[in-house]
């Protein structure tokens, strides 16, 4: 087994390192690793022996006891209602999601088909009104404009004239090439 890293040595000394048996076998026979172990032990010993432990002043308990006699400070403001703000926030979010889901799932309004049928019926009614020529405000006007000389787009019979594309300025075929392209 190769020499373990310094971190593995620290883990071996102060924590449960993996492959502990193999590591121990190696450490027993490796003078370099033994030196590294000793270095870590010395560091620990230096701190343990030279870190001075202290005791607080003799009246600390009296001060604590004086405060124990009084009830804990009353909780006021926001925390009165929400002693745990994070929990309250999480609960609010969950509640909001639940309510939104419920609204979507339990939608009690008219169904989509019923709404479409109602729109169709309304539309049909409107069309029927316009089909009735008596109610068509453009009907009489059209009759007045019946003369073909006044309407350049109507023939004498009141139908659209089959005009010559060459002379009709509005013909879309005017600019078409006349070359035979059937080849």
């Amino acid at each position, binding site marked *: 087994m190769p020499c373990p890293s310094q971190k593995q040595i620290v883990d071996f000394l102060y924590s449960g390192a993996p492959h502990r048996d193999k590591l121990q076998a190696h450490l027993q026979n490796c003078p370099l690793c033994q030196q590294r172990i000793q270095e870590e032990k010395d560091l620990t010993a230096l701190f343990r022996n*030279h870190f*001075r432990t202290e005791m607080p002043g003799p009246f600390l308990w009296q001060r604590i006891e004086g405060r124990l006699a009084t009830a804990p400070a009353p909780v006021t403001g926001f925390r009165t209602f929400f002693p745990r703000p994070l929990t309250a926030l999480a609960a609010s979010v969950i509640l909001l999601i639940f309510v939104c889901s419920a609204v979507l799932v339990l939608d009690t309004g008219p169904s989509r088909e019923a709404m479409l049928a109602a729109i169709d019926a309304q539309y049909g009614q409107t069309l029927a009104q316009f089909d009735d020529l008596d109610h068509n405000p453009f009907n009489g006007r059209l009759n007045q404009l019946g003369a073909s000389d006044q309407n350049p787009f109507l023939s004498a019979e009141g139908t659209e004239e089959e005009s010559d594309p060459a002379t009709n300025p509005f013909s879309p075929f005017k600019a078409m090439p006349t070359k035979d392209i059937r080849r």
Partner: protein
Amino acid sequence: MAELHETELISLVNTAKAGNREAFHELYTVFLQRIFNFVLGMIRSREEAEDITQDAFVQAFHKLAGLKDPAKFEHWLYRIARNEIYQRFRRKKAEQVPLGDYEWQELTPIERGQPIHNPEDEFLRQELERVVKIALETLPTKLREVFILSVLHQKSYKEISDIVGRSLLSVKTDIYRARIFSKDAIKRYLGTG
């Protein structure tokens, strides 16, 4: 430092939970030195360390009813003290304040009630104490807390992970880094690096 058997601890905690101050005083007596020195290692000022220790014990008494597992009272108390320390840090940003000397540095061994050794030994001891203190102070807070708990309070990695609320892997890495930092600091101050 008095040690309690687990059954005694559970019994004391349960009695204190019912509001018994004598039982709580016994718990205070057992854990005071550990908590105070943990706080002192972190906060550097003796006065503030006393205040924080006081706050931690008062908090512990008032929140004791919420402690589910009485056997974990010590870790729970460490966590309360740690929270108090971090609250103090946040309030005062004490981390960035240059370190003052501990009050005890100005006291002589006689004043501290310690026996006087050979002057040379005494000088060496004081020097090592100073070096250890400086090495500890140079550690970043996050590393310092795990280092104190591991090396000085001899807590297992699992216990430390429980107290500081970080993963075991993170604790292992931080302890290792803290050891590297400390070694470097000691070498630097002892002039062997």
